[in-house]
Structure formats: C-alpha cells, structure tokens
C-alpha cells in the first residue's frame, strides 16, 4: 500500500504547473494579506495595532483554510479523475492490484500534495506574524502556530478529500472540479440555510464540521462533526470505489 501511495504522490506532484499555481496563489494571498495589513497599520496604528502576532497567524489560517476550498477541489478532483479519464487506470488494474486500493490511495496522496502546496504560504504567514508588529498581549505563541497549522491541515484534508471523491466518482476532471467547487462554494451556504427550518440541520454542511473540528465555532458536538466530515469525504470515495470495481476497463 505504501508503494501505491508513493506512486500516487509522484503522479500528482509532477503536475508542476498545477502545483506551482496553487502554491503561488496561496503565497500571493498571504503576502497580499500582510502588505495590506501593514499599510493599514502604518496609516492608523491606533486602529490597527497588530499586523503580526497571534492575530496575523489567525488571519493566515483563515485565508488559507478559505483558499483550500478552491485549491483542494482542484488538486483533489484532478487526482481523483485523471486515471479513469485517460484510461491509464487499465494499466494499473492489469497488475492485479485491488481497484479499491487504486481509488483509496488517491485520498492520502492528494491531501499530502495539497498540504505541500499550502505549506510555503503557511511558513511565510508564520514568519510574517513573528516579525511584524503586534500589540502587547498579542505576541505569536507556539499555540497560535499549532492552531493555525491544524486549521490548514484540516481544511486541506476535508476539501481535497471531497474533491478526490467527486472526481473519482465522475471520472472526469472537468466535471469533478465543477461539482466539487459547486458543493464547496454554493452547496455549503445553501445547506446552512436549512437551519432556518430546523436548527439541528446546521450540523450538515462540511464547513460547519470544519469549524467545529478546528475549534472556531460551528454548531453541534465534535462527534457529530466528525461523523459529518467522514460522510462528506467518505461517501463519494465509497461510491467511486464501487463504481470502479464494477467498471469494464
């Protein structure tokens, strides 16, 4: 299995254009965030006392977790769909390798690659938070860095996982990206509106589970959030695995 995951990681990592674009967008967003924050700080230090520190790290996490909706969907859907779309899957199946394993390894591999794509931006965000001015009591701590890293990792796993599952289920990169983005950007807010009908339904959206698990709010207990997250990521993966098992390649 580990050989299969390593192969999968190489396959995704070598899509350099996609990886560099995702990493570049994340990096640009963080650089832009701190440039704007610094300019505002210089203009009115009293109103904007902190650029870096804990606040800077929190802002870094929020921006990267938000961007992961798009980055994770792109990397995930591409990783999930490519082999079926190009029929290269035949030549993997021909080795006698379990088809379920062929689908399953895409999840950890794509998540790992998404984390790699976000890592430079996270490091730059942490560096900026450490060196840029922060008001007293808002200094950067290890807990701030840990919390931000957890938020980014969690977002990467959830949204990339969703992208992998949907991409593999559709067997088409374009459709996979479109559906994953639609679910991430349109579906989640739409589902949130369900709480108007019955408040416990607020726990259904993946974004709510994400907030609960990262400890930044959200509705419902942790175990429900975990279950919801597992269902969002797992259901398309199981569907994709079942589809591939029956597929005539």
């Amino acid at each position, binding site marked *: 299995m580990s*050989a*299969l995951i*390593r*192969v999968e990681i*190489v*396959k995704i990592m*070598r*899509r*350099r254009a996609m990886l560099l674009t995702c990493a570049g967008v994340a990096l640009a967003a963080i650089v832009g965030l701190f440039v704007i924050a610094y300019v505002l700080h210089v203009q009115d230090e009293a109103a904007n006392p902190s650029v870096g520190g804990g606040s800077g790290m929190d802002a870094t996490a929020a921006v990267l977790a938000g961007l992961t909706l798009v980055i994770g969907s792109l990397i995930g859907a591409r990783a999930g769909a490519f082999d079926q779309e*190009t*029929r*290269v899957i*035949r*030549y*993997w*199946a*021909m*080795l*006698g*390798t379990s088809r379920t394993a062929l689908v399953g390894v895409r999840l950890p591999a794509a998540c790992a690659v998404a984390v790699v794509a976000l890592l430079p931006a996270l490091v730059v965000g942490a560096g900026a938070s450490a060196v840029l001015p922060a008001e007293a009591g808002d200094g950067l701590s290890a807990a701030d860095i840990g919390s931000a890293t957890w938020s980014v990792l969690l977002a990467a796993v959830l949204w990339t996982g969703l992208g992998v599952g949907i991409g593999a289920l559709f067997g088409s990169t374009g459709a996979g990206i479109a559906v994953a983005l639609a679910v991430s950007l349109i579906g989640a807010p739409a589902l949130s509106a369900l709480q108007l009908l019955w408040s416990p339904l607020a726990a259904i959206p993946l974004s709510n589970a994400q907030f609960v698990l990262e400890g930044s709010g959200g509705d419902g207990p942790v175990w429900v959030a975990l279950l919801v997250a597992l269902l969002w990521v797992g259901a398309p993966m199981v569907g994709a695995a079942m589809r591939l098992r029956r597929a*005539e*390649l």
Partner: protein
Amino acid sequence: MATTPIIEQSSVIAVRDVVKVFRGGRRALDGVTLDVPAGTCFGFLGPNGAGKTTLIRIVLGLMRATSGAVVVRGHEVPAEARAALARVGGIVEEPRFYPYLSGRENLALWARLMGSAALGRVPASLERVALGDRADERVGRYSMGMRQRLGVARALLSDPEVLVLDEPSNGLDPEGIAEFRTLIRSFVEEGRTVFISSHLLDEIQKICDHVAIVREGRVIAQGPVAEVVAAGGGGVRVGCDDPGRAAQLLQGPAGLGAIELDGRGLVVGGPADPASRAAVVRMLVEAGIAVDSVQPVGATLEERFLELMGGDASTPPPPAHPPPPPPGVGR
C-alpha cells in the same frame, strides 16, 4: 462459470466457452474457446467488432465474462488475477501514459509497484524498444509509434511469460513494422508467449506460429498458421481476356472444381499443383484465350481470412497495411 473445464497443461492462456453480453444485449463473444500454446506467437484475427479487444480485456482481468472460464498461467481470471497476471504484460487498444512525465519516469512508476527487480529493468526495456535516447523526453511529445514501443517496454517490466498485444503495429511506419516483427520473434525465441491481435494479416502470417480467426464473437478457425491456410479451398485465379468464355470452356474437364467469376477474375477450384495449373493455361491458350496471370488462391492467410469471412459485405476485409496516420497526429 459453474465448473472449470479441463485445461491443457501446455496452454498458457486457455479460454473456454466464454460469452460476453454487454448491457443492452449486444453479444460480443459467443462461446469462444481458445488454447494458446506456451512459447509461441499466437495471432488473433477478426474484422472490426468481432470481439478481439473484448476477449483481450477479459483475459487481462479488465472485464468480466458473462459466462465461461479463462485460465492464464494456470490461474483463473479474475478470481486469481494477481497471480495470473504477475508475469503478463499487455497493451489494450492503445498504450496510455502520463503525458507530463518522461518515458523513463512513466516506466519507473509502474516498476515501483512491481518491485525492485522491475525498477532495474527500466533501462533495458527502453533500450529493447529503441527508446533509450528519447527516454527522458515527455511522453506528450512522443509519436503514436513511440508510445506503442513504450507500451511494449512497460509490458516487459515484469519479465513477462506472456505478452498480450492488441493491435501493436498501429501507428508504426513500414520500417517500424519490420522492426516490430523482429522484436516479437525475439520474444518468442526467449521462450515467451506472445498473443497478438492485428489487422495486418501478412504480418501475422510472418510473425505467428498459431492463429485463431474470430467472426461475430465466434472462433471459426484455429490452429497452426500453415494448417489454417492449407484448410482453404485451394484453386487458382486466372486473369484472361475473356473470362466468360474461359469459364464455359473449363466446365467440362474432370479434376477441376467449381468455376466462379468473382469480379477480380476467374477462380478455378481444384488445380493446386503446378501440372494441373499448366494444363488449365494450355487449354485456354489453345482455345485462343490470352492468359495474363495465374495465381494460387488461399495460399496466404489474407486469402484464407477473406474466404472464411465469406465475402459478407457487412464484414469488410481488414487492410493488408495500416492507413498512414493523419498529419500531425501523435506529435
């Protein structure tokens, strides 16, 4: 697959009564039975849509048969696919790769799953198919012929006992086809079994030891190439200036078979030996008919194939040579 039929030990691929019915009811294979002897080159021939690729996909575990049994290297497919396919390499329809990786990187990906021995075979496999000097170029830049050769290189990574190649000459130029013929024979000389489907009937006749001909999902002829060819009707095709009168003239003498006018000339059944052929020519010339050619019928696999296809307009004969690739394709 209620019971496993008896399989001959010498068969490296044995197919028994395999039926494949697709969703929608199309019957692609209708009770195919085949024995591929070990250490031979086995040609699998048939017109488009006859079921060649379907059978290959079933043999390689990519598709399940509706009924019947497939045994590869003594293991049932798909039940024991991993053991059956451990030393089987194949190309189905068209070899597929990651276009953004080089040929070498692509092979290394597959080799990583096969183990360290396979990883060590990557350079030799590339050299074997004459891609050593282009191995570090991205596959997206390869021509169709180069991708075919890279497909064979990938098939060699497992040091295969059996190579299953579906139309491997597609995209190759005449020089490439000749090189490919040599390559295939070298595999057989090493003791490997090569199962090859192709439209190139003259190539199959040159390369293969055994052949099976499939039509509408059924095997209609099978055996050593010489036997399959010799089982044809025989006879000669006579080119002359008055085929109609020649046909009337040749109705009489004993020893001649059916006389037919088939649009390409006059076909005289029976006179397979040179003396009989000479007698036919003498008879026509003495009657004042100018004879410009006399060719044996059914002496080639292509003619035997056409004969078996029965001249059915719905099953046009495959081309003897592949059409040239359209400009710009594969680049």
